């Protein structure tokens, strides 16, 4: 059973990480396609996967020069797995043989680079020795990346080619002799290729040339005629044996290709295994580089179903902020089976925190490092993020309708050990029913062995004790005087940024009866909503309280 749906992969930012990996080889790309989650019970396997990554991170950190060389070699690799497969029962072309030789040289390079590394290299990256095959394809042991059906591949071929060259010379010798005779006899001059070109317009010369018995018309177009030496018996004989030789050479070249293909075929599974190892190496290097660039740490994997994240960051948002020269405010959270509600101000980053938790859980469970300073994670059986998106609206469903449809799906699929991330459920309907529905969902979920993290605006969702409440600090500690003075002269974009600057995104655990801070009207006012409207809204609030 799959861990999550595609939307969860996208919304948490897991896909963002996968797409951001800089993979160098086609084998690495194949490996990326095979990324899969480690289910609960597979903790040991995941730990091994993370250990491989840890060793790779070490390699990258301690041997930058060697890794640089490694990457250069990887970047040049082409996908030859089809050619390798084919070698078993077909004859490879010269270009294919060249490509295999190239691959062997590259494998040799990778192998020796990893051999020379001063840190422990995971066994999965180690390539099997294919020198024996390389020696066959490189009989001169020159280790230069060129290829041809060299004479060295077959003594017979060398002999045949030598003979061919001799005959070529013989023919040329005979023709030169003839050329001299003809030139002397008829006072004409022929090209070094034994040709005599004349204009067809010159009828007289044409007649004269046609009459020369030693010449024959080789080629003519509407402009000129090209004559060449008529071959005599000697030349004919030589040319005939040349033809035979050419056939024999072609046949022998085919034999050599057959032999070489069979030799490659014998190494087929070893080569394919090496390709897999290269893919594993490439994939891990990409993960290691990514982890270093994004300050990620190795998560501690535990048997219990817990999620402890210290100073976690959501990478999609962090990257956007960094491009603007700003920093992500890290958020710590500690979750275990049961329901945790996040409440707090608008623009307080509740949804981002939800996504951050999802991203960390997803990354850890797929064998990646995690963007935080420390993580202790137990594997989930099912992960789902329920969050509003525009896709369902395009399908013609109302936001409430699609939300309920998805909720049903979640509740049907969830089993013990699930991780559910729910963003502002039932906010798209009337507050009376919305609150009631949210409460009953929370009640239901708190009875299950799931980790449920729910963001909401509703007060008093969590009556009943078993529920933990987290609150975004928000604008609670802010001097509103200062803030509104700063915001007064700002333009639209600046206003949002100023609010962001004052906002405290961190989460705090609060007692369950504490009322949620009401910052919505403050923020609406700061964003420039008409003063009358705000005042009237405040009045309605007062009325309701009374």
């Amino acid at each position: 059973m799959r861990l999550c749906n595609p939307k969860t992969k996208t919304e948490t930012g897991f896909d963002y990480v996968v797409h951001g990996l800089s993979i160098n080889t086609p084998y690495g790309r194949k490996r990326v396609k095979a990324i899969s989650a480690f289910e609960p019970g597979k903790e040991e396997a995941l730990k091994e996967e993370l250990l491989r990554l840890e060793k790779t991170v070490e390699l990258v950190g301690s041997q930058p020069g060697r890794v640089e060389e490694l990457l250069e070699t990887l970047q040049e690799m082409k996908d030859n797995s089809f050619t390798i497969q084919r070698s078993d029962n077909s004859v490879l072309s010269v270009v294919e043989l060249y490509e295999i030789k190239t691959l062997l040289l590259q494998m040799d390079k990778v192998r020796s680079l990893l051999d020379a590394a001063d840190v422990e290299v995971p066994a999965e990256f180690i390539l099997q020795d294919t020198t024996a095959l390389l020696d066959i394809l490189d009989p001169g042991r020159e280790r230069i990346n060129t290829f041809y059906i060299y004479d060295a591949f077959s003594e017979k071929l060398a002999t045949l080619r030598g003979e061919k060259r001799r005959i070529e010379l013989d023919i040329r010798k005979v023709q030169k002799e003839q050329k001299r005779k003809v030139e002397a006899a008829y006072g004409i001059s022929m090209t070094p290729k034994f040709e005599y070109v004349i204009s067809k317009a010159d009828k007289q010369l044409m007649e004269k040339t046609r009459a020369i018995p030693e010449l024959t018309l080789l080629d003519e177009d509407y402009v000129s005629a090209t004559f060449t030496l008529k071959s005599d018996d000697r030349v004919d004989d030589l040319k005939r044996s040349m033809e035979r030789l050419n056939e024999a050479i072609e046949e022998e070249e085919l034999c050599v290709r057959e032999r070489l293909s069979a030799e490659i075929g014998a190494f087929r599974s070893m080569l394919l295994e090496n390709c897999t190892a290269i893919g594993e190496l490439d994939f891990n290097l990409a993960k290691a580089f990514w982890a270093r660039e994004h300050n990620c740490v190795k998560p501690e994997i535990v048997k219990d179903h817990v999620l402890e994240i210290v100073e976690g960051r959501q990478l999609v948002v962090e990257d956007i902020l960094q491009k603007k020269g700003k920093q992500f405010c890290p958020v710590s959270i500690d979750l275990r089976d049961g329901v945790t509600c996040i409440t707090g101000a608008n623009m307080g980053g509740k949804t981002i925190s939800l996504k951050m938790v999802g991203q960390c859980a997803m990354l850890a469970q797929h064998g990646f490092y995690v963007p935080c300073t420390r993580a202790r994670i137990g594997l989930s059986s099912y992960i789902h993020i329920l969050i509003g998106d525009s896709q369902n609206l395009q399908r013609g469903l109302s936001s409430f309708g699609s939300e309920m449809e998805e909720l049903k799906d979640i509740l049907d699929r969830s089993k013990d050990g699930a991780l559910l991330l729910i963003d502002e459920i039932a906010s798209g309907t009337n507050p009376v029913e919305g609150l009631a529905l949210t409460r009953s969902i929370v009640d239901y979920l708190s009875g299950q062995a799931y980790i449920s993290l729910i963001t909401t605006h509703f007060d008093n969702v969590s009556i009943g004790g078993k529920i933990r409440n987290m609150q975004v600090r928000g604008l609670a500690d802010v001097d509103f005087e200062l803030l509104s003075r700063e915001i007064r002269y700002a333009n639209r974009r600046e206003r949002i940024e100023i609010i962001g600057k004052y906002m405290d995104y961190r989460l705090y655990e609060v007692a369950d009866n504490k009322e949620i801070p009401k910052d919505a009207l403050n923020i609406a006012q700061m964003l420039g909503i008409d003063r009358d409207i705000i005042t009237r809204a405040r009045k309605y609030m007062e009325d309701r309280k009374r």
Partner: protein
Amino acid sequence: MGILNQLAQKYKRIAIVGMAKNAGKTTTLNYLIEEAMDEGIVIGVTSTGRDGENTDLVTGTDKPRVYLDAGTIVSVPVQLYELADAGLEILRMTRYFTALGQLMLCRVVDSGYVQIAGPVNTAEHKDMCNEMMDLGAELILIDGAVDRRSIAAPATSDAIILATGAVLSRSLKKVVEETLHILSTYQLPRIPEGELRDRIKTGAAQDRIMLIKGGRSEFLDLKTSLTAGRILDDAIDQETEWVFIPGALTQSVIGDIHPSKLKGVTFVLKDPTKIFIGATSWQQLRKRGFQVNVLENIEIAALTVNPYAPLGYSFDHRELLTAMREAAGNIPVIDVMYGE
């Protein structure tokens, strides 16, 4: 010293360009390749890639099949490798692609016929030529464009060999005159390095007609000058010194400019291939004081002549050769048919 040796001393990359179709471009290429064999120079052979439009519909493709001697470095697409009659040692798989697959650089081991192809992109072409030189080519011959107007020179080569011949006209005098016209336009003064050149090059990026009046630059809202003669005539005043035209320079543009204004200004073009004015009109304009400079020139390494025209007429080859040699000054002229 043979002609190839002489060329190799001065240039690294030479493109062979025809004045017109059937001017003898492929004959020239084959001639030079043969010369290289005799002179023992290691050459690289490639071609400028062409897009679909330039494909010869009559012969199907326009990739010449040339006979190459052992040692020659040549660019061959993967799909044509197996079709080569020559024995080719694969030296390198390049990063460049053609419609017929990835290009490989090969060394001819066993002489024979090869179909060549090269990258379409100018920058890639340059890079690939450098790679060929790394592999030992002393001189690179590029099978260039059929028509001189579509050549990408000066970017792809150091110099060109211009193939000209009877195909241009039935009159030998006319053939010489047309060729001479091209020679003289290719030798127009190049704007030297300096403030003016920098100013024009910066302005050229805008791709608009630019007038320089006493140190000020003024742009016209016209991309080409095709119908712009009158507007241009209006814009040129006493102060105007230079007029940069990004597109084609045609008879109609110049015709609309008042003759008295022509004397005072110098027209600047990107390179000589932008000139679309015939030999006779060009001469008349020059007499009236018309001046043209260019940003980049095209160096002509040699001229080749072909005395035969496909329509059936021909010139006496010696007469054509002599007339052309007289006209060409110190540019070598070769008759590729007779090897003189």
